[in-house]
């Protein structure tokens, strides 16, 4: 087991190089001069632009730029973004906020998605099943920017239950509303995945055996049906944690959350290679660890699954 984990962690290295190389190249390939773009309609003297370009090594070929980035990374100095702010500082500001948001959203979608999915799966075609089908259709068909806007208006302004936006000093309470919005779309996925697995497993032999043994219904549902139905759900949640940590651009925008998504979006719009790649580097670590956890959970959920073959 320990060998398996170590092997997986070592795989971070190729993924890291592949991703940063790809992302850095994509930023490099973006059209437009990022320095000139900083100034909008009012262009500064050419000397200012040229000096900044050489300061950020934008006048260098791709391999030199990428090499400098790697060199910076290994000396634990991520450098400055185009407005002169240290990138490490902004990462330290945005990641905790987004992590809180992601955890909250993940908890919401996992708890409610699984619970509703089990009920819907046990009574397929019943009124509860039909109701949650409609709910999941609504959250799929209504884009996040509308859903977020409506939530903000209803709960933030009309009912006054929460602050309409998050802004500075984000905490668990103020992030709840965006977390609900963020969790809703994935909630539909979790719900339907759970429902499908449960309805598939409820007629399985071991369930009949368990029932025949005289186990109580809740025990059969939780210990046998649910546990065996969780693999696709866990896979999805693991992947989704990665996605959530990458920041939800639309939701963070609507609720003015100073998180990864907002930062990433601004950085992409400004073609700020170093910032984008630094964020992505952290994300790669998150993905690999999340995937590893998912794989370990597989073995726990279903003892037949073995990795040390």
């Amino acid at each position, binding site marked *: 087991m320990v060998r398996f984990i170590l092997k997986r962690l070592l795989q971070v290295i190729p993924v890291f190089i592949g991703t940063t190389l790809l992302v850095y190249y994509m930023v490099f390939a973006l059209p437009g001069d990022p320095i000139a773009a900083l100034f909008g309609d*009012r262009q500064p003297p050419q000397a200012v632009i040229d000096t900044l370009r050489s300061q950020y090594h934008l006048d260098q070929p791709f391999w030199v730029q990428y090499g400098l980035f790697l060199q910076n990374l290994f000396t634990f100095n991520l450098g400055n973004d185009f407005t002169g702010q240290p990138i490490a500082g902004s990462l330290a500001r945005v990641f905790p906020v987004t992590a809180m948001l992601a955890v909250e959203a993940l908890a919401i979608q996992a708890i409610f998605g699984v619970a509703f999915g089990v009920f819907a799966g046990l009574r397929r075609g019943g009124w509860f099943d039909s109701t949650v089908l409609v709910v999941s259709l609504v959250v799929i068909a209504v884009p996040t920017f509308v859903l977020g806007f409506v939530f903000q208006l209803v709960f933030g302004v009309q009912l006054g239950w929460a602050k309409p936006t998050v802004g500075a000093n984000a*905490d668990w309470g103020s992030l709840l509303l965006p977390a609900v919005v963020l969790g809703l779309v994935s909630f539909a996925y979790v719900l339907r995945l759970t429902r499908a697995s449960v309805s598939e497993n409820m007629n399985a032999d071991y369930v009949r055996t368990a029932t025949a043994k005289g186990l109580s219904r809740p025990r059969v549902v939780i210990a046998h049906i649910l546990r065996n139905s969780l693999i696709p759900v866990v896979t999805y949640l693991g992947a989704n944690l990665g996605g959530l940590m990458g920041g939800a651009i639309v939701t963070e925008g609507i609720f003015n959350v100073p998180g990864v998504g907002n930062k990433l979006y601004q950085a992409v719009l400004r073609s700020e290679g170093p910032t984008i790649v630094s964020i992505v580097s952290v994300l790669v670590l998150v993905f690999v660890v999340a995937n590893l956890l998912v794989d370990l959970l597989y073995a726990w959920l279903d003892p037949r699954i073995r990795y040390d073959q």
Partner: protein
Amino acid sequence: MRFTRTSKALGMVAIAALALTGCGAGGGSNDGASQSAGDPNKVITAYSNEPQNPLLPANTNEVYGGRVVELLFEGLRSYDANGKPVNSLAESIESPDAQNWTIKVKQGQKFTNGEAITAKTFVDSWNFAANSKNLQNNGFFFESIEGYADVSAVTTATAADGKKTTTPAPTAETMSGLTAKDDSTLTVKLAQPEADWSLRLGYSAFFPLPSAALADPKTFGENPVGNGPYKFEKTGAWVHDQSISLVKNADYSGPRESKNGGVTFKFYTDPGPAYTDLQGNNLDVTDVLPSNALKTYVTDFQDRNSTKAVATNSTLNIPGYNPNFQGEAGKLRRQALSYAINREEIAKVVFNGTRTPAKAFAPPVIDGFKEGLKGSEVLKFDAAKAKDLWAQADKIQPYDKSKPLQIASNTDGGNKEWIDAVANGFKNNLGIQAEIQPFAKFAEVLNLRKSQSLPGLSRAGWQGDYPSLYNFLGPVWATGASSNYEKYSNPQFDKLLQEGLAAKTTDEANAKFNQAQEVLFEDLPGLPLWDQARPIVWSENVVKAETGWNGGILYYNITAK
């Protein structure tokens, strides 16, 4: 907020969802709004975004840094709400010939760190700003002063692959035209007479800087020290990507004394959430409304909104390199396009009256503005005339309709709606295909404009730096000017501008500038679209807010309840 049945239904879904998730949302406070009227010590919150540069007046050329700098510093002059310059640190500004200026500086003025402000402070600050090796974005504002060419000199090296690199190479450290005779007398000699030169002295580039700024501009810009109505709340009051907190400067005595305890600028990357925050009294004032709120803000904020004309206009630029718009046929087509835009209707429907149809190349709020200039009749909507002119042009040279006529714009600034409307107007009135050419990034449009490779038209907006007709013409349409990306050039126009600059009185100057506009109407290198009014809204926590001549909110004039 108009609440129709459907949106209520959506709201019900939302309530149901939250009820199901069973969460009691927390923290609904709005910063403990106090009920007492007119509290001069309360801090107000205002919409803003992350400034792009360290907060140095001569380096800040974008709005979000600009609004902070303007509160932190005070110049020789400042502009009142109507754009009229009033003397502030200057006791008097005089010139017998519009070329040699004598400025008397008030004595006893100090920066908040105790450093005295004298005539020499201005000499040092301006020399710093103009010096090309200091890389100040607003350095070119000093170009009229004698000796500017020496301190701003650059060298351009061409690499083997043909790439040009410009590096600063000043040949002098000080501008020869700038001297401090004594602590209170500043003399400025311009390279040539300029009647409206003193108008610009209220612009932030001309603000004085303490010596710490000149020594280490970058560090200073993180925690600037000024002489304006406000100062930083504390070291580190600028929390990046989140907010900047300013408090009242008790030592300030000038025309812009603060009526509140301070201003906290909260950063938003999008105006939509700020608008919602205002509806929830979670923010006190904003000057940027989401485009979809233009029809509702008057009802959403009854008695808490104001809309005032400002010195900002929009044009649709027609690149001269586009073969469809060259020669005699091109001229007719440019006129036809102009006639085919129903400015009146778009201003009403899309902008709900927050824009007014353009009457000239400069907005009416600028001193010297004149309506009914020769050629300005093309700004009136006339579908029949448009069709007729287009047909005439087709007889001279057929229109290449292999590609639709595209109007390039970034899509993130609420421009899509009006561009769609203009494109539909072209379609319906000229019978050509027209559509928006959307770009996710402003940089891409700019790049294509600069490299002269935009296939169609592009939109452009201009906000005045200082209230002068010249500021709307020179930087945009003069040959080789900094924002003349389409490289329009007409010697007659340039000559009239120069004559206007050299005129002895502002009236004479404005007459020349208006003549220059008639040249533009003849050529139509761009189509004036509309002039902006700036709608602002405020929360229940403040008494009232108003905008200045350039649309900026007069933060110092806001009183908290």
